[in-house]
């Protein structure tokens, strides 16, 4: 029997300066269903759940019906009062408060806090998750996975009708993911609806009843899970079927440029060995927290290993400082480009030329405007950065173009080895394809590229070889042309494959 729809949203639009994040999207939720919200990065999923949970207000004209009555969610509190609460990515908790307070906060609005009630609510919420922990411990002292459980406990205790989760499993280990599925099924029995965002197809097929797909801020469709299979779902999300075309056809017989032998660093990675050839793209993959970023940072002098050896062109090298890594012609583009990669308040020209500024001086030691201009313009052209105005501030470019500026910034150093962490994180589909093309052409020109990626599609479409990490160790290494994707996933998650 079909359960009745209690929340109906239509004509939801959301305009940010210069971007239409949502364009007349609709969504309906039935009582006690598990509803997956899917779409590529930048499709507008997070914006949509921010609207439902009262964090952001949609453009005028939006229509939200709750039990057939027209309502608005002008504040987080209004949503909570309607029995709706969300777990946002990384944003919902207070490291300086206790577990109990984290769960309780947002309930009473004034006056004295009833500590007994606070403890009881926390204990009850954790009980429902069958989790045991010291509720008087400061949240900041817990592991990331435990913090995530606290976030879930908090949201459960606030949501009587609809619980929203933005990528709930991103930071969880395999067994904790299993536990979360159990919790979801339990809540479903209590007739609480769940709306969740996920990028993991298997997850969606395992727990959800219905799927709504968004693409580029537009509504694509809503289907029962039985009507779909994986490739249909991907097609809805991407708008075409994705082919795993291997793009770099050169042989591996080319010159070995980097060799890493048994490097370890306490609490980061253990016993890592691999080699990298000219013109090759090597992918590091695995779950979040497997030690991938920590490992590649070691090659750029940011995370120097305690033991082990690194050879470049057959010569043993020290990489304890960034300046040493740069001298060996290594470049690193971090994942968090806003924080670590770009100076947002500087022009594109200043950003691009920053790493080589000392080489662009004229005889008096001043920066040479002509040189910086021609150099920036050269890279604007090769990378197809739009708009190509080199004086424009970096913050005024779209995510994809900022990404390209970050790439340009390191390409000017003409590196032999390019390390790039999550090359297309937070980038729209069009820019994603362009960045992929760019990396491929760089490899073709002989650059050796190491990339860290969590997206299997990307790993298989782009790289020649893949290294799977888990708990700080390498658990698998294979060619992407002959390798078995399922086996690799299992290794990443379980540490061992069935085969």
């Amino acid at each position: 029997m079909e359960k009745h729809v209690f929340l109906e949203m239509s004509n939801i639009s959301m305009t940010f300066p210069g971007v239409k994040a949502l364009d007349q999207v609709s969504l309906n939720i039935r009582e006690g269903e598990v509803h997956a919200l899917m779409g590529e990065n930048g499709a507008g999923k997070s914006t949509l759940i921010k609207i439902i949970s009262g964090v952001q207000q949609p453009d005028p004209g939006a229509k939200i019906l709750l039990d057939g009555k027209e309502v608005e969610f002008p504040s987080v509190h209004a949503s909570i009062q309607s029995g709706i609460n969300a777990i946002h990515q990384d944003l919902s908790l207070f490291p300086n408060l206790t577990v109990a307070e984290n769960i309780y906060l947002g309930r009473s609005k004034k006056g004295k806090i009833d500590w007994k009630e606070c403890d009881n609510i926390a204990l009850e919420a954790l009980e429902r998750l069958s989790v045991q922990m010291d509720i008087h411990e400061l949240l900041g002292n817990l592991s990331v996975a435990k913090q995530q459980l606290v976030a879930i406990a908090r949201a459960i205790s606030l949501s009587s009708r609809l619980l929203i989760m933005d990528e709930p499993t991103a930071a969880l280990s395999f067994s904790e993911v299993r536990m979360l599925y159990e919790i979801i099924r339990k809540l479903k029995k209590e007739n609480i609806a769940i709306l969740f965002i996920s990028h993991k197809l298997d997850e969606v097929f395992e727990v959800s009843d219905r799927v709504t797909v968004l693409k580029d801020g537009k509504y694509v469709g809503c289907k029962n899970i039985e009507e779909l299979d994986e490739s249909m779902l991907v097609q809805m999300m991407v708008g075409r079927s994705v082919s795993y075309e291997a793009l770099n056809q050169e042989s591996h017989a080319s010159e070995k440029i980097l060799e890493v032998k048994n490097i370890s660093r306490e609490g980061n990675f253990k016993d890592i060995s691999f080699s990298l050839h000219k013109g090759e793209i090597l992918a590091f993959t695995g779950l979040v927290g497997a030690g991938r970023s920590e490992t590649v940072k070691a090659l750029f002098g940011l995370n120097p290993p305690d033991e082990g050896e690194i050879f470049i062109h057959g010569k043993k090298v020290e990489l304890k400082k960034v300046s040493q890594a740069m001298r060996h012609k290594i470049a690193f583009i971090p994942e968090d480009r806003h924080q670590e990669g770009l100076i947002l308040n500087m022009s594109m020209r200043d950003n691009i030329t920053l790493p080589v500024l000392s080489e662009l001086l004229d005889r008096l030691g001043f920066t040479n405007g002509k040189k910086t201009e021609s150099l920036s313009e050269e890279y604007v052209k090769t990378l197809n950065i739009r708009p190509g105005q080199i004086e424009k501030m970096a913050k005024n470019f779209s995510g994809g173009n900022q990404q390209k500026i970050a790439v340009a910034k390191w390409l000017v150093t003409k590196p032999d080895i390019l390390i790039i962490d999550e090359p297309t994180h937070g980038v729209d589909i069009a820019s994603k394809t362009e960045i992929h093309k760019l990396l491929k052409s760089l490899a073709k020109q002989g650059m050796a590229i190491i990339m860290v990626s969590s997206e299997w599609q990307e790993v298989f479409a782009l790289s020649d070889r893949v290294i799977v990490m888990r708990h700080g160790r390498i658990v698998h290494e294979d060619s992407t042309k002959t390798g078995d994707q399922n086996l690799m996933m299992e290794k990443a998650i379980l540490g061992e494959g069935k085969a």
Partner: protein
Amino acid sequence: MKKLLERRETSVFLILAVLCIGLTIYSPTFFSYTNIKNVLVSNTALGIMAAGMTFILITAGIDVSVASQMMFSATWLALLSETPFGNPVTLVLAAILIGFVTGAINGFLISRFDIHPIIITLGTNSIYRGIILVMTNGRWLMNLPKYFTAFSKTVFGIPLPVVYAVLIFLVSAWLLKHTYFGRSIYAMGGNREAARYAGVNLKKTIFFTYTYTGVLCGLAGLVLDSILGNCQPSGSNGWEMNVIAAAVIGGTNILGGYGTIGGTVIGVLMMGVIENGLVVAHVPTYWQKLVYGLIIIVTVTIDVLRKKKADSKKQMIEID
């Protein structure tokens, strides 16, 4: 027990205790009733303001106008006491009202326009100070009436200003620890966006925090006047730095999220004991500032290093 030892307040308290014992051995006059009373009384106004500063620092804000707010109140109160309307009741009411107004102006400007508090309070610092200088022409207001100085009498051997300060500490600690307002302050300082997502009204919380501090500054003005028996409108210049320092030495995180009234009280005592200790030890007063500076840097550096170590451990990956 282990948790108690891990707390920042504990280590500062131990340093304070060692300092007191050392000073007592060096010069027995340090531990005399008169000297202890002096140390406590002369730091009450500082302590009362530091309680308010603790609230503000926990929200990740700052208020450099506290000394001006205190003098603003002190000057008006002294002027009031020269008129026929002056009596103990009107003095207390006026102190609260004046502090409320100066604090509320800060709170309104900061929360309404979302401007960094250091800019707003730098501005109001100058304005409040300017108003009283213009009003009095910089004239000292001498010989405050008896009923005014009676506020700082000693009753049964206990100086009243110390009683006021203790009461204010208790109320402040209770507000921080056990009310929705207090917990919102911590939440906001710990993770501003998350606090917003949890339904905390940030603007209101900021407004109340600065207003509460203003009221405490108003009361500090009353206490200061009654202790000194006169009012010097250009006085207590630069006290705001001592107030901030006391809170920070007591473990309040200048970036927000952490701090306690207990810690701040220890910080105030630390500043007071050092000042007094230098006198007792016959160190020229010119050394005072230098020692203050060293103490601030050393205590905070130790804390930051300890935190860094703990954080780097937390980020480690379990390798099996």
